[in-house]
């Protein structure tokens, strides 16, 4: 069955630390990849997406993610986190040409200490 595995359930960092959240998906064909973020008390919102082309994609608020096809991975990175990055982060993918049915990982809660 198709699935997404996020490596960390809860990450705690100090401000200015670097962030990397792992994400692996299980599907052998072409996929579209996403990272969504849910700030406390807010809607889920799209952080960044990969459809094709350059495997290094940049999103909002200084986040970036790299698609490594051979590893079925789409890890999220940020060089220096801020307290305002405290949120839950969800990795998701959809199968190409399947109408955007998203398959989500279980989420990673990020807590940034000021």
């Amino acid at each position, binding site marked *: 069955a198709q699935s997404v595995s*996020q490596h960390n359930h809860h990450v705690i960092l100090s401000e200015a630390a670097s962030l990397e959240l792992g994400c692996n998906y299980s599907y052998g064909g072409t996929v579209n990849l996403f990272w969504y973020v849910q700030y406390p008390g*807010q*809607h889920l919102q799209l952080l960044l*997406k990969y459809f094709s082309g350059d495997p290094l994609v940049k999103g909002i608020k200084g986040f970036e993610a790299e698609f490594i096809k051979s590893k079925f991975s789409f890890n999220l990175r940020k060089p220096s986190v801020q307290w305002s990055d405290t949120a839950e982060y969800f990795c998701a993918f959809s199968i190409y040409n399947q109408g*955007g049915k*998203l*398959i989500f990982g*279980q*989420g990673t809660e990020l807590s940034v200490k000021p």
Partner: protein
Amino acid sequence: DAGITQSPRYKITETGRQVTLMCHQTWSHSYMFWYRQDLGHGLRLIYYSAAADITDKGEVPDGYVVSRSKTENFPLTLESATRSQTSVYFCASSWDGYEQYFGPGTRLTVT
């Protein structure tokens, strides 16, 4: 610009009752989706719709019914609520099916 709204935001109901969760979007997006969010599972797709009068099952459709008579509305009905349906329900919409915009969620408790 209201975007996408869900109602009610919180609901407590008893086992066996029918309950309907509402979702309304103002963008005229073709696609709409219902997800449930449970601890340890992330979000799981219940049903989706590619256009008015077109709906299809997602990963966890059992116990749920949807309809979409108008593009802007996509109600989700629990025909006979069970405790296992206690969850947070998110509606989303999209113009292309891929970049999805989420509503604020409905927290449903079934007692």
